[in-house]
């Protein structure tokens, strides 16, 4: 059985730089990230458990959205008219958010990014459960980070584990947690 160890969310319109300064402060790469990656990074900072920064292969990072990297894609497309920006281009991939979280936390397990038409607990739970078919995956940081524009986003994430003592990771509990 999968259980929820913890949950984090970042309300739409949050000042991400202020949140970073309050909670983190020592990771200058944060300022190079696009908004979706900043959101994923900050969610992971809230969910990361001790001991931190020790390499582990049993932790997966699974990220879901509707917009993928579209918000940053628009910034890159603007740069193309002048000089195409390599540092914007590298963020035009929906899975870079999983890479940023993996790098920061030294999570060397599975990382996957999915694009769905909308958030539904049914699809979200099913895809996360399926990821646990990999026997090496003991826990997963999985979330919905949908960045429609730099100031318009939905962002929440769960730390889910095999066994554990939290409430069951199922459709009802995900729905209940997310709609609070």
């Amino acid at each position, binding site marked *: 059985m999968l259980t929820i160890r913890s949950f984090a969310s970042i309300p739409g319109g949050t000042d991400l730089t202020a949140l970073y300064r309050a909670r983190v402060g020592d990771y200058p790469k944060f300022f190079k990230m696009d908004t979706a990656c900043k959101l994923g990074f900050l969610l992971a900072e809230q969910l990361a458990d001790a001991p931190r920064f020790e390499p582990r292969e049993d932790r997966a990072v699974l990220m879901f959205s509707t917009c993928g990297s579209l918000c940053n894609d628009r910034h890159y497309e603007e740069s193309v008219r002048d000089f195409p920006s390599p540092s914007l281009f590298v963020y035009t991939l929906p*899975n870079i958010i999983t890479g940023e979280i993996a790098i920061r936390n030294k999570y060397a397990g599975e990382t996957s990014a999915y694009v769905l038409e909308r958030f539904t607990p049914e699809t979200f739970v099913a895809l996360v459960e399926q990821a646990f078919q990999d026997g090496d995956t003991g826990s997963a940081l999985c979330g919905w980070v949908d960045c429609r524009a730099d100031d318009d986003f939905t962002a929440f994430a769960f730390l889910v584990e095999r066994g554990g003592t939290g409430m069951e990771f199922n459709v009802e509990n995900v729905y209940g947690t997310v709609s609070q």
Partner: protein
Amino acid sequence: MKKVVCIGESILSPLGATPAENFAAVCRGESALRRYEGMFGVKEPFVASLMDRERWTAPGRTFFDSIVIEAARRAVEAAGIDPASPRTAFVLSTIKGNVEYIETQDVTLACSARRLAEAFGNPNPAVVVSNACISGLAALLQGRRILLGGGFDHVVVVGAEVQSRFIVTGFQSLKALSEAPCKPFDARRDGLNLGEAAAAVVLGFGDEGWELADGAVRNDANHISGPSRTGEGSYKALRHVLRNCSPDALAFVNVHGTSTLYNDEMESIAIDRAGLLDVPVNALKGVFGHTMGAAGVLESILSMHAVDAGVVLPTRGFSEPGVSRPVKVSATMGKTTKQAFVKLLSGFGGVNGALLFRKGGAGC
């Protein structure tokens, strides 16, 4: 445990409109890589493998959506399944989809996935796997997981990518493109070429034919655009899929082989660490270019055809070894009697993936 097998395939590429046509073209040593000047309004010339847009664009659809749906249609037909059944799922693999229309249309990847499901009257939610350059491989693995998770009889996995100013200028800004046809694993390799293709596989349960036996995705946790210098994630993915399989059983490892300095070097280290220095290694990027979201599906299908024909496909563009480990790069067409292979890919975001395919009787 029930076996997940491939029951229908399709490939649309500049080299052909069926898997057989594409396989024959690869065997003949062909490639559609050519130099384009002014294409997509890109200032700098570039070498790429591009499809005939006019031929493949359906009325009222974008080129991308057209080849996605056409590749799916052909694979569904080959498999003889009911695509409208609620017990059939669709998984789309792409990185940039319709991004060329970013300024004028809704280009979210999920829109393309919905149109794919709608084209077949399928009621299930559209799922897009967008995991950088390993997307196609990850989508096949996802298809396997959906079946093993229960509730479905078939999964149609479609991988597709079309090129655009957006993508070409991006890779140019990263100085990642070669000005000549690429040379995977070669001493003179200096970058990749981009490519367009769509390929689809229908997965189902069965005892016959090609089994998608296992798969793994692992992250380097090192850098978002540079591969690990120690091949960490690629090695871990290989180690996972080969945990119950002897390297002796493998006909070959079909690698990513993008022909960038760092990727091919990294893969050679991962192959060495996984104990695969005696297994032939080949790459198809010199034939099709880097077809991004299509690559995992396209290259897996051609590898299945190669084993069926008892051959190890050549690595077009390779002549002189140029990686630090003595990997057995297959420069010319080889023969094999083995019945299993590994498909390997890596991508931005530090992501790496390996799939193990086998046929009845393979010793793993």
